[in-house]
Structures are given as C-alpha cells and as structure tokens.
C-alpha cells in the first residue's frame, strides 16, 4: 500500500525538531518580513508618529474620465483627508460652466483611507508585540496571531476595495454636499470615495418628479454608483437622477498599499500552512 505508515520514533523526533525550528526561527523570520512590508505600507498612508511629524504632505489629483469631459475635478489629498477640491461642471443642456470649491476652513475625511490606515497600524501593533524575544510555544499560538493579523489586513483591503453603498438620501444628507462654496445647487449631488486604487468623484444631476407624474415611483436602494433614472425622496420632494458623471484618478500609493496587503496576506497564509503541516504533533499538547 502506498500509504505512509504511522511515523516511527525516529521520524517523529525529526519532525519534532523541524517543528521546533519552525516555531523558533522560521516564524520570527516571517514576522520580521511581514513587519517590513507593513511598515512600508503604513508609510504610504503617512501614519502620524511613523517617523514624519508635522502636517502630511499635500497631493493633487486631477480627475477625469476617458469619455466626456463634462466634469473635471482637482482634489487635494492630505493624508486621509481631502483638504481642497475644485469641481468644474459643464451643464449638458446649456453648456453653462459651474465651478465649486471646498470652503477654506473645511476638510473632508476619507473614511476608507483612515480605516485602512488604522487596520494596518493595528496589524503592526499585533506583530510588534511578538518580537524576537518572544518564544512561541505552540502552533496554535502562531495560528491565532496570524488569524488576528489577517483579519486586520483583510479588513484594510476590503475597506479600499469596497466603497460604501449609499442610498441617494444618504448622499444628500452627507456633510460633503455642504462643504462647497458657492453652495451646491439643490439639483446636484456629489460623492467622493475610493475604489481599489482610484479616487472617484461622482456628480449626480437631479430633476424633480412631478407629483402627479405617471411614472412609477420606486426609491432606489443603496449603491456605489447610481445610474440615471434612480429615484428617491428628499424632504417632501421626489427626485430622479438625470445625469451621472464619474471621474477618477489613480492614487499610486494606494496601489502600492494594496499590493502590500495582498503579499502580506499570502505570507501569513503560507506560515499558517507550514504550521498546519505539523498540526498532528502539536494539537494535543496543552499550553
């Protein structure tokens, strides 16, 4: 039979030795590697306290789309906050040009970036707690640590890859619409979010539905990007999206960060897999 017989005592001893090496040396090597990668990632997020003090540097992003150029935006990102925004909108009907900017005193936190950053720093904190001086005793301990780290990293990644699905009333109620000067006309809605490595700006043009309209009113649910025809109720008014403009720009460092997340997640999983190979040897040993 091809099956492996129960390991002999010699084999067992070799395996034990190998496992000990894994726990004492290999795990720490991987952890160090992980820390390096995540530190690199956290630098991208310009974590406060991670070396650079003072205000985070400002980056300008010009947002555009490959199709029409009805909306143009210049957004300034400072760490996790939008510090300035300039939005130019060419109205499709009358070619009238509208221009809005952030009020001077206002900043808009991009919660996705902030959350991703915080998750990364949590992961780093978890790893920092287990430096070289720490001795792992069981495989389960390593698995638990890896699970905790992976949870943080998965969340960090998911925050960037999955923008919040908002309903139109939620967008209308959001503070972002009130940040502009001159104030946004009531038939415009603006939303900013991160999708993967891109900073996205959507502008919704609305028109009011007649109260006695024959159109079947069905409020739209939550969505990242609403399509024309989506309806909602705001105040006492029923509104419908007539035009949607979406412009975006790639944020290079977000791209890096996502790559770092993926790599470190794979590293974690590989370490877990290595530990699991020995699972039959450690699982019955108590702490």
């Amino acid at each position, binding site marked *: 039979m091809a*099956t492996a017989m129960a390991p002999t005592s010699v084999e067992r001893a070799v395996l034990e030795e190998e496992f000990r090496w894994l726990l004492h040396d290999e795990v720490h090597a991987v952890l160090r590697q992980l820390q390096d990668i995540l530190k690199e990632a956290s630098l991208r997020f310009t974590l406060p306290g991670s070396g650079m003090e003072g205000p985070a540097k400002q980056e300008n992003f010009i947002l555009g789309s490959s199709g029409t150029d009805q909306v143009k935006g210049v957004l300034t990102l400072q760490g996790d906050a939008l510090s300035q925004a300039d939005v130019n909108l060419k109205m499709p009907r009358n070619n009238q040009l509208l221009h809005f900017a952030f009020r001077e005193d206002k900043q808009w936190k991009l919660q996705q970036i902030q959350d991703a950053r915080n998750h990364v720093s949590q992961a780093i904190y978890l790893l920092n707690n287990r430096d070289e001086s720490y001795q792992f005793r069981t495989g389960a301990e390593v698995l638990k640590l890896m699970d905790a780290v992976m949870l943080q990293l998965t969340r960090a990644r998911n925050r960037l890859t999955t923008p919040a699905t908002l309903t139109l009333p939620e967008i209308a109620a959001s503070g972002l619409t009130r940040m502009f000067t001159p104030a946004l006309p009531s038939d415009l809605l603006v939303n900013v979010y991160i999708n993967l490595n891109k900073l996205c700006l959507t502008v919704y043009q609305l028109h009011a539905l007649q109260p006695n309209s024959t159109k079947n009113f069905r409020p739209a649910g939550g969505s990242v990007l609403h399509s024309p025809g989506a309806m909602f109720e705001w105040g006492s008014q029923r509104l419908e999206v007539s035009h949607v403009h979406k412009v975006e720009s790639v944020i290079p460092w977000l791209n890096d960060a996502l790559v770092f997340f993926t790599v470190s997640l794979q590293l974690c999983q590989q370490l877990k897999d290595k530990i699991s190979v020995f699972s039959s040897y450690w699982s019955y040993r108590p702490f």
Partner: protein
Amino acid sequence: MRSSLQAVALWGKKAPLHSITTIMITDDQQTIVTGSQEGQLCLWSLSPELKISAKELLFGHSASVICVAKARDFSKERYVVSAAENGEMCVWNVTNGQCVEKATLPYRHTAICYYHCSFRMTGEGWLLCCGEYQDILIIDAKTLVLVHTFTSSQSPDWISCMCIVHSMRIQEDSLLVVSVTGELKVWDLSSSINSIQEKQGVYEKESKFLDSLNCRTIRFCTYTERLLLVVFSRCWKVYDYCDFSLLRTEVSRGGQLFAGGEVLAAHRIIIWTEDGHSYIYQLLNSGLSKSIYPADGRVLRETIYPHLLCSASVQENKSLPCVMGYMNERKEPFYKVLFSGEVSGRITLWHIPDVPVTKFDGSPGEITITTTWTLQDNFDKQHIMSQSIIDYFSGFKDGAGTVVVTSSVYVPSLDKLVCGCEDGNIIITQALSAAKAGLLEGGSLLKDSLPHKVLKGHHQSVISLLYPHSLSSKLDQSWLVSGDQDSCVIMWDIFTEEILHKFFLEAGPVTSLLMPSENFRLRSNQVVFCVCGDHSVALLHLEEKRFLFCARKHLFPVKVIKWHPVENFLIVGCADDSVYIWEIETGTLERHETGERARIILNCDDSQFLKPESVLSVASETHKHKSVEQRSSSSYQFGPMPCPGLQVESSCKVADAKSFSGPFNVLPVKTKWSSIGFHILLFDLESLVELLLSTPVCDSDPSNSFYPSEILRRARSTVEKKTLTLKRNKTACASLSAEAQARPVSEALTQGESSILVLEEYEGIKRQKKLKSSKKTHPTPSRKFDANLTIDAAKLLLSCLLPWGVDKELDNLCIKHLNILKLQGPVSLGLASNEDHFSLMLPGWDVCNAEMKKDYSKVNLFSRKVLDLSNKYTSTLPNQAGTPGGLENNCDALYESNTITYLLRRLFLVNKLVNMPVDVAYGTNSSFRMDSVHNKVKSPGNDILHILSFYSYLRNGKNESHLPEADVSLLKLISCWRDQSVQVTEAIQAVLLAEVQQHMKTLRKTPVNSEPGSMNENGNCQMMQIQPKMECTEELELQCITDSLSLQTSASLVKHDSDSNSANFQDTEDMPDRCVVKESESPGEPMHRSWIAKMCFCKLC
C-alpha cells in the same frame, strides 16, 4: 425556539480551549466573566474567600469575543454585555447564563462602558462603545439598538479607550476618550442626554493632542478629582484634569509594553503590562518644578514622580500575553482585587493590601498570588463529571490512557455514534448506551457488554466523517466515509465492517467531507467533496468508487463550495474573497475572480452551497424548520443557511438539521483551533412526551392485545382499587389517567370501534395542532422512533434531572420502580436561550454553591433552593396522595412507562411555563391573582396559558377529564417562580423531585391498599367512578365553601360527566363551564371545539 430541548454535556477529560481575551469581575464580586478567542464566554464563580471555580460556558458568538462589560445596574439585574469580532453583541444574564438580548451591528467594538443616569434617563441606560469606527456609539442597553453617536468636530478617528468621569464637585458626568492617533477628547455626558434623545449632534467639549500612540487606558482619579492617568503601550503619563497639562511621563523599560492601569487611592496607581507584571506606585509631588524652570515664562507648575511600592507578576512568568483588570471596592465585604486572564485560559487573582508589601530592607516587595485557576483544574478535580461519551473504551487500549476522539458523527436513524480516533480507529457504538455507561452508576457494568465495532484502516487520526445516508436517503444505509490526517479517504460498510474503497488524495489532511443533500437531483448526486489541508477540493464519486478530480489551485482556505447545477460548475470561494470556478466534467479551472465580481458570483442564488467550516446552532428548532422551508421552496439549496453559532463540523450540522425528529440526539461539538471536541446529548421533551403518549400501551406492553382476559383482570383490579382510593382524592384526574390507560384495552372487547375512533381523533387533533402552530411545519415524524429507545432516553433524562441523594429511600424506590439508574456524579446540563445561544454547565459547577460543599452525599442537586421549591410544590399538591399510583407493581412495565410519561409531561409543562415570555406571563399572572378560572380566559395575555392548558389537555389526551383545580394552583406557583427568577433547571428539578416523592409515597403505602375490596362488573365500575367524584365535590363543598368558582367548575363537570355518560352531548347548556368559556372566548381556536366535545365524550362514555 425549542424550549423543550434539554441538553446534557459530556465533556471528556480535556477542557475546551478558552484563550481569554477579555476579563471582568461583576460588581457583586461573585462572578468572573471571561471572553475567549474561541468565541465563548465563561462564568467563574468567585467565593468570598476568593476561590475560583468555573461554572458555565456560554455559547453564542461565532467569532472571538473582544470585550465584556456590565450592561445593567448590577444590584437590579446581573447582566453583562459581550461584543465579538464580527459585530455580534449579546446581553447575558450572569445568574443563569441565558442570553437576554442579541444584535449584530456592523461595528466592531473594542471597549464598552455602561452609563445610566437614573434621574435624567428612562430605560435601562446606554452602552457607550468605541472601536473600529469613528467616534463613540451610544447603544441602548436593553434593546441593543443604536441610539445616537458622539461626533468629533475635529479630526474624527477611531477611539482606542475611554472612561466615564463622575465628578462629585461639579455634579456632571463627562466622557473622556483617546483616539488611536493620541487625541484626547471630552464630551459632556449628563448634560447632553436630552440632545442625544432628540438626536441632535453632540460634539466634543475639549480636545488635546497627547503626542503618543497606542493608548491603552485612561483613568480619572476619583479621590483627588484632579489627576488623570493615561497609559500608552510604551509609556504612561499623568495629566492634570483641570487643564490637561502634563505632570509626568514614565517610559517603559526593557521592551515592556504597558497594557493598562488604575488608580488605587489618592496618589497611588497601579500599572500592568502585556505579559502580566504589575507595579504599584505612589505619586509624590516633587515641588522642585519651580526651581527647574525659574526663568521660563510659562506658568509654574508642579511635577510628580512615581515611587515604586510593590509589584506582582503572574505565575512562572511565562510571558504569555494576558489581559488584566483591577477592581476597587471601598465597601467592606469586598476586596481590592487585581485579576488577570491569560491566553492559556488561566485566571490569576491578587488581593491588593492597603499597606504596601515590602521586603525586610524596605525595598519594594512582591504581592503573592491569592488564587489561580484554569478550566482544566475544574476538569481534573471533577473527573467523575467530566465523562466523555466513549471513555470506557480506554479499557481495551491496554491502559494507554483514554482514546482521543478527533471527529464524530451521530446517526439518528440507527442510534449509532461514530467516533474517529487519534490512533486511526473508528469506533461505532450505540449512542444511548454509551451515554448511559458514561453517566450512570452501575454503568460500568454496561461497559463490558456494550456492543461496539472498531473499524481499522486508517493509520493516522481520523479527522472527518460523513454518513451519506443522513443527507440523501437514496444512498446506501451502510456507507460511511472517513478522512484522515494523511489524506486518505476510506469508504466503509458499517454493518460488515468492510472497507469498500480507499482513496488516496495526496492533498494534506482531509479536513472535511461534504455532500449535497437529497434535493439536488443530478447525475452527480453521490459526489462527496473532500476539503483538504492544502486548500484543495477533491471530488469522489461514491457509487462508482471513482476519484473525479482534485481542484488544487486555491491559495487560501476554502470557505464556501457552491455548485452550479445547470452548467455543472464547481464554484469555490476562498478566505481571501476570491472565487475559483471549475468545470466538473473536465476538471479544468474555468475562471478565477477576485473582488467585486467574486462577490457577485458567490451571491448568485441559483446554485447550491456548502460550507466546510460551517457553524452550528444547537437548539435551533425554528432555524431548522426555516431551513426546511427554504429547502422546499428552492429545491437547489442544500444544507441549511449558515448561521452564527459555535464552531462545529458541518457534516453533523446537516445531519442534525435533516433528521431532528427523534427525541434523543447526540451532537458532537468542536471548538476552534483544537481537534478535541465534546458531545452534547439533546433530549427533546416535547417529542419524548409525544412519542411516549402515542405508543405506551401498544408498545410498552405489546402482549396486551393477545391476552385480553389477563388485561381485563388487571384493568378491573386497578379500577377497583381506584374506587377505594378515590374517596381520599380530591381530584380524580390522575387516577382517571390511570384508568384511561387501562380502558382502551378493557373496552377493546365491547367498544373496539370507538376506541379506535378515539385514537384517530387524537391523532387528528395532534395534526391540527401542528398545522396551527407555525412552528410545526414539518409533518409528524413518519419514521417511528424505536419505542424502547424512547423509554430509555426518557429514563436517562430523568436520571440526569433527579437530585440523587436527597433521600436514600427515595433513590432506592426510584431505582427499583422506575427502573432508572443513579448518576455517577452531577451532570452538566445545558440551557438554551434561543436558537443559537446556550450555556453549558462545566464539571464542578456544584462546587460553586458554597453552601453545598458540606454534604457530598447529594449528587446533582442544582441548588439549595430546589428543596424549598420542591416542598412548596408538594404542599400545593393537595393531598393527591394516590395520584396515578392507582396502578400497581403487578404490571411494572406499564406502570413504569406511565409514570415516566406522567413525569415528563409535568416537566414539559413546567419548562413551558417558566420559559414563557415575561409579558405574556405577566398577563397570566395578573389574571391568576384575580384567582378566577374564568377570568383567565379573558385577559389577552392568556392565550399562552390557554393553549397550555389545552396543551396539557391534549397531551393527556383521553386521560384527563379536566384541568383540576390543583393544577391551576400549581401553574400559579410555577408562574410565581418565574417571577422570582427561579431558573428553569431548578424549577424542573424541584417539580420532578416533588412528583417523584408523591409517587413513591404511594408506592410505600401500596401494601395497605393493594387488597381488592370487592369485585365489580365492568359496567358498574364507571358508575362507581363517578360516584366518588361526586363525593369528592361534596367534600369540597364542605371544605371550601368560599371558593365558589372552582366549585362551580367541578360541580358542572360532574354534571357533564353524567350527561356525557348518557351520550347526550348536543346539549351545550350542560357543557362544563370551563369548556364553554374556552370555546366562546378564544376565537383563535375554534377548531378545538369539536374535539373538546369529542374528547369529553369519549373519555367518559
């Protein structure tokens, strides 16, 4: 919710893993609550001498628990709240381990503070939460609904810690928080209650940047009302609360990471580290500051420097990460306690003395550990209690210790428990007998004779098992599939113990075996999916004994397996949210998707799915029914929806859900990160009663129909005896029941037809009832559970519930007459609070009750209270001396089964009553206070009780003529118990004890009455029967003239009896009042009308 489910845990020798992530001591210093990474909570009792013993394990979270906090004013309700990694929150009653409220919010909390301001707030108060989201959430402590948020106007960020400051001086409560970036913020609490209730924005009052990261704790010194202690992971700082000016920074030495701190007294603080060291400092005013900054233009201020007084550290200094806390109570009976919980599951307590410990030379000393304890200590101490279900096999393993079970599956249709062991053997045994052998005294005798089979074929530990027949009845009953650590999958014939086929997958340990359920009608019905250690999925065809293919490209653990029946695709979802699509025909990878598209593919509904790491709810009858419905509506779905619960092998989940029609079940449970599991025996009271009632006469004594003369004689003698004893009985119900047991037989000769009719009617009613209550969606169990098995399960349940050793004589009588065995030790009962929340007692729970320490003779007495309750109950039983004891030992088997049925019925009733929702109960109760049987029906909340009495009616079926007055008072009593927050288990045990005592009393007396007085004709018997009843009413009249209502009832009943005797039933005016009222005033149940009539009719004619 299936409240009638009783669970008994068989823990085994090894305690389940409990890696403590959070720990707290309740305000009354009686309970320690810990949360674990595995997702359970543990309640530990803390004695006044500071001794710890684990009491209960609470299951309910499906992810690791992050924090626990008190959820109510503890002097009123002993509730705590727990929050898990995945956003689940539960409020638990610490007293009985029940889950009071649960919710899943999309927030991950890391800390919770309970806040209640009695004079400005209505309701139960708020839970102030912080975690992986911006700012502070306010959650209602009672409903767990998000009330409002505290928002930051400046740089909103995650909050890492907080504390509530009650300042006596300014009579204002404030909330102090520190964000992850080190920003200190202050919100007004008490003065913003109104604006919160009106949902206005509440912004911070002050904020200050503290210039350190990873804040762990912030504490306010209530003694001086001035100092603020902020502990960061690398340093701790002391601030002046008035202007937040920094008074002192102390940096950690030697790479230690601080974890928290607390203010002990004025100018005295304690700081602890991640690895379990703690230091007590006296803060001294230096007064030097003026001279240090003489020329500085800044405001002069003092500085503070710490002086180490003493320290403490955990045992052996293993530098295991631990969480700590400190409890400061100034009131006398309480201690100042420092406590820590380690990842290994160890709890350590220090009693902090008021006078610092010093060495001889006056240098700081070390505080000694007061107590330390682990779950395993409980198990070691109580080895009798920590029985594993297959412990007794240790015998044949040449004394090498017990067999470690690494996987198991229960086959309800055969009552077989299949256990895969570490050594590669698979043991198949009779589950019920195995449980008995493990639990009961004298069970050791059973051990030798216990039939079991050992399947040898694996060389490494068997870690996954599958019994295909339980998923698809088309498959062969004899098949069993097992997978081991070494990637070998064996297909067995369990009857012949043959190996049908061996598959070598070469893909790492076979972690789970899954199979689509029956509803999936496709060619590949018999495909087994093997999820392997290297994240591959192997497909095996059982019938053809063929290896189809192995999907091997997955980088991350397999989370979901889906199935596209039309295109024959295998869709594998991995832990990294990517999706792999495999073509089953060719075994090629069709597509690999990530991100949004992967999510869409996984969410599309037209495919079936399986979850290798499925999670399970134990007591979820509703859930199961839901899943049954789902299955019927969408035929493709296989396996029930995954739901949060405890981590269990999926195979048993499916099996369990599929075939939960039996009254007895064994549930294997495994916790995360460990291959060691334990078993839970589940007894379904309702189904037990149902089965016992529908079968007793024919099944327990099948000889009846063949020896009519013998039975006649027996029946006659019993009836005669009754006529004698009845005179002493106020209520005739029980004896009637006994009579009814005998009647179908005695009447079979003359009225054979009608008795069949009765039975049919009875069945019809049952069905009707089932249709009516939405819970009962699945048809009456078609597969008859083996009658002997039912009786055995019932006996085992009674054994587990009885308080042994209370009365030696009683024990012996029970053993002799009920034919049940004594327990070896106390059992660990389970208590289900809803579908996926339940608690299990741990071995050694009985030690927790300090007062019970002395008498070791008493085994399994849940609490002292039980005896009192039992006495109360007995006193309410109005000299029902000869209850159903009319039956004699001359027909022991019959008597036995009848008594057991009766007892279980009682238990079921008690269980139902105590578990009744409080609001409804309140209704019934108030009506009870009116003390009127008639009013009862009028109050709206009464439906339940109404149904209940109907229910008992129905249960008793043909046995009981009416709900006797005594029963009403008993119901009243039991309802009172619920209000006094008597636990269900206590109530059940008390009632059981009282009932058993009653029964046995009659047994002791029996020699006296056993002489038959006179021989009567069969026909006369009935007359005689009514006569004593008449007499008894007259007696009643004499005794309690005031109680006219009840009198009326019974009087009319008697009337009704005589009427029905003449079979003149159309005359409704002669119906008993109670029945009329019930019919007319419960429009919801008009269906019952006819059967009530029939019932009564049949019963008495």
